[in-house]
């Protein structure tokens, strides 16, 4: 039998109360949302907090608001709800693709978007498209709040910008402008319940239906200690007209932007090659969406 470490459990009724608790407990406490990461880490004795503070049932952390040119998603919005949301699908198709690919239906019913970010795994399914869309996260503590670009949020495997007394409350994603699109593909061993081998999200915006690419963001997972941007691939897209051959060129450039390692999931050389393929294909999806 797998034993959990000993801890005290708290379920504050409001966010204010939770912020108060995190302020008091600091590093001795861990937040639990869906628990699909934390429970596994605690069972493996990789984490043994003295206090566990549950936030999964707070309505204030479960909102979805798409007004004023921004999509705001509460940290405790579940992955199942993301996968099912037509609204998310229409505005942020690549994010929904990632949500549908995460774990199993059983896991998705528990797992939250905030937890997928908070856990800071370089293989996680939601950060690539969120970063490609230019998302920010709102970090709150008793004394105030700050918004941090997801680009600058991850510091290493399991490490983030979050302070021990902070709670990630909301994810803010600018609604993509017209003639913009994004794509996400995750490559794994099986269709469900696996850890990604490589995952890539691409976003492009053009200055018109037949125009040139004015901005591009490509984010690669599993090929570095954090999700990596592909600067040279992005650079070769700017000012160019979209085409198969341009996307192939960007794919080649992306293989130089990533730093995968050999591990039991796959060889570094294979992951590098697949990063190129997925970059090309996700750019194709992004372009199709941009012109539709």
């Amino acid at each position: 039998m797998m034993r959990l470490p000993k801890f005290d459990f708290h379920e504050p009724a409001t966010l204010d109360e939770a912020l108060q608790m995190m302020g008091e407990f600091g590093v001795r406490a861990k937040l639990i949302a869906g628990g699909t990461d934390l429970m596994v880490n605690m069972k493996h004795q990789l984490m043994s907090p003295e206090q566990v503070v549950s936030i999964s049932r707070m309505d204030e952390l479960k909102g979805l608001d798409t007004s004023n040119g921004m999509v705001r998603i509460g940290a405790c919005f579940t992955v199942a709800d993301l996968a099912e949301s037509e609204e998310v699908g229409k505005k942020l198709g690549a994010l929904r693709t990632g949500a549908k690919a995460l774990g199993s239906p059983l896991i998705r019913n528990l797992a939250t978007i905030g937890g997928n970010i908070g856990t800071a795994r370089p293989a996680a399914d939601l950060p690539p498209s969120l970063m490609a869309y230019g998302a920010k996260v709102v970090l709150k503590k008793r004394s105030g709040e700050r918004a941090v670009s997801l680009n600058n949020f991850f510091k290493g495997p399991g490490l983030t910008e979050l302070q021990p007394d902070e709670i990630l409350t909301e994810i803010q994603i600018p609604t993509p402008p017209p003639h913009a699109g994004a794509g996400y593909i995750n490559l794994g061993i099986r269709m469900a319940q696996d850890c990604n081998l490589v995952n890539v999200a691409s976003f492009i915006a053009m200055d018109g239906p037949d125009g040139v690419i004015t901005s591009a963001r490509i984010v690669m997972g599993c090929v570095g200690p954090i999700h990596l941007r592909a600067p040279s691939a992005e650079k070769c897209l700017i000012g160019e007209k979209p085409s198969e051959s341009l996307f192939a060129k960007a794919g080649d450039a992306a293989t130089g932007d990533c730093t995968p390692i050999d591990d039991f999931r796959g060889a570094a050389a294979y992951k590098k090659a697949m990063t190129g393929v997925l970059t090309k294909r996700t750019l194709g999806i992004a372009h199709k969406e941009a012109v539709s």
Partner: protein
Amino acid sequence: MKKKLISLTINDKAYEVAVEPNQTLVDLLRYDLGLTGTKKGCELGDCGSCTVIMDGKPVNSCLVLAMQANGRHVTTIEGVETDEGLHPIQKSFVEKGAIQCGFCSSGMILSGKALLERNPNPDEADIRKAISGNLCRCTGYQKIVEAIKELGT
């Protein structure tokens, strides 16, 4: 580490129980309440043998703390049977030969039941997706898929 009293509804019956903070829902069900129809395989969310329906949604009860189930409605395999005997989905599993050793069956049946409540006429792809968090080491899945498909409208 203090025990706390929680109240929850399991299979339409109200319970009030004292639980440890580090006790999981599956352990509460099996060891404190004797509801051993819920199985425990991996304890890590991988196998689905511990599937229960919580507030209408199938979840891995090995990843839920008992205290997180406070105030919730839980359905376990023991709650699926009706006054008229086995539930149609249970009958279908038996008739189609979808049960061999039976270790996965509680979870499979609950995942299948939750699917049919959302989508009364699922196709094969829908069914395979819905049971993708439930592992079976015996049947090869085909008969389980057929048993669920049989109940489509």
